[in-house]
């Protein structure tokens, strides 16, 4: 299916943050290689949104299919963060779960998940929540079968709620500066605990706490990309080649890694305190760093690179 002129858009110039899910998929994978499952023409839309007088999307906000990356077969899912905040509804979740289950039979080189989600779609909350649990179990099955599951995060909606948990289940994650990975969103924390706990309008605070740079520095993500599709493509190719196994050793290592993180940074109030303890000379300068300068900083962070995921 033709979509959004992506074929004519240069992946080097196309902003991941600005691109639609469909544009990301088409520009990320080898030209002409993408085949969509349950494409919009099949009109698998949410059966629930009309009850709330809300518009539906032909793909329920997620594009799934198969494609090639450098000639190798991959399965790919991409959430559309602008439709209902990329949230997991029943059809949306079912498509991701089905794709992951298909991987066991198809044995692709990797499964790529292009997260862009606020979490569970409240209008179909129980279906969304359960689908997230199903997706996590399916990812584990896929990883055990030796197929890397790579998460790419850099969209408008970030990767929140259950999306953050699914991301934490992946073999590897690539993130851009605009990407955020978290469970509770800033507004949720503020609503429940007050603006003193978290001022959601302080966007610099949001990005310091949840954004791509912080996640990369503490090892919450394995690659940091410039905000272009080609940068994500490069990261995805690289991460496919170095995915950790899913076994007791890996999880013991992750246990040790996360415990050490809390020991080391558990009393930090702000990300800049964490970065200072990581040995970053001028923590205040991190948000303004360009990709190259940040890469040098990451190279000096002892926590950034590991196989404990």
């Amino acid at each position, binding site marked *: 299916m*033709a979509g*959004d*002129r992506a074929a004519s858009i240069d992946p080097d110039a196309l902003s991941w943050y600005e691109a639609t899910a469909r544009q990301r998929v088409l520009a990320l994978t080898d030209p002409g290689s993408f085949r969509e499952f349950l494409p*919009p023409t099949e009109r698998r839309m949410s059966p629930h949104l009309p009850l709330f007088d809300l*518009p539906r*999307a*032909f793909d329920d906000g997620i594009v799934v299919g198969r494609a090639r990356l450098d000639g190798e077969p991959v399965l790919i899912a991409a959430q*559309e963060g602008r*439709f209902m905040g990329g949230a997991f509804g029943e059809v949306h979740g079912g498509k991701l779960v089905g794709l992951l289950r298909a991987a066991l039979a198809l044995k692709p080189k990797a499964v790529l998940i292009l997260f862009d989600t606020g979490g569970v779609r409240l209008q179909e909350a129980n279906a969304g929540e359960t689908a997230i649990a199903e997706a996590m179990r399916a990812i584990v099955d896929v990883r055990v079968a030796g197929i890397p599951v790579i998460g790419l995060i850099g969209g408008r909606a970030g990767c929140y709620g259950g999306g953050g948990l699914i991301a934490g289940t992946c073999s590897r994650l690539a993130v851009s500066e605009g990407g955020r990975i978290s469970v509770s969103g800033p507004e949720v924390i503020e609503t429940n605990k007050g603006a003193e706990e978290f001022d959601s309008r302080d966007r610099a605070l949001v990005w310091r706490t949840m954004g791509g740079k912080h996640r990369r520095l503490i090892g919450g993500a394995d690659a940091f990309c410039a905000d272009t599709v080609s940068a994500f493509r490069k990261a995805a190719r690289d991460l496919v080649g170095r995915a950790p196994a899913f076994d007791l050793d890996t999880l013991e290592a992750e246990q040790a890694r996360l415990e050490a993180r809390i020991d080391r940074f558990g009393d930090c109030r702000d990300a800049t305190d964490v970065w200072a303890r990581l040995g970053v000379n001028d923590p205040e300068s991190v948000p303004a760093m360009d990709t190259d300068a940040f890469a040098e900083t990451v190279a000096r962070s002892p926590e950034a690179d590991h196989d404990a995921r």
Partner: protein
Amino acid sequence: MESLTFRHTTKKPLPGSVPSAITGVVASGNLEILLERVLPPDACEVAIETPIAGYGDVWEAVVADFVARAQPGGLRISINDGGARPDTVSLRLLQGARLMEA
């Protein structure tokens, strides 16, 4: 939600052979348009689902102008509207037609 359907006869089919295309996103003030080359070459049907009721005459005018301008014969066009303004609708329709002409 309000459903609207408009049927037009065109003077010619839309050039090109792309069987289907989609453009836009269902978001506040935006819309998605699915175009499928499934109708007779002189027919065009536009079906709209919109959360904002009471703008039927505006949709009618926008669709009529688009059909007159693009002559999208053969297309069934399905729209999921997120409350887009008419100018955005026109723009997306033209973008969709261009994708189908490729």
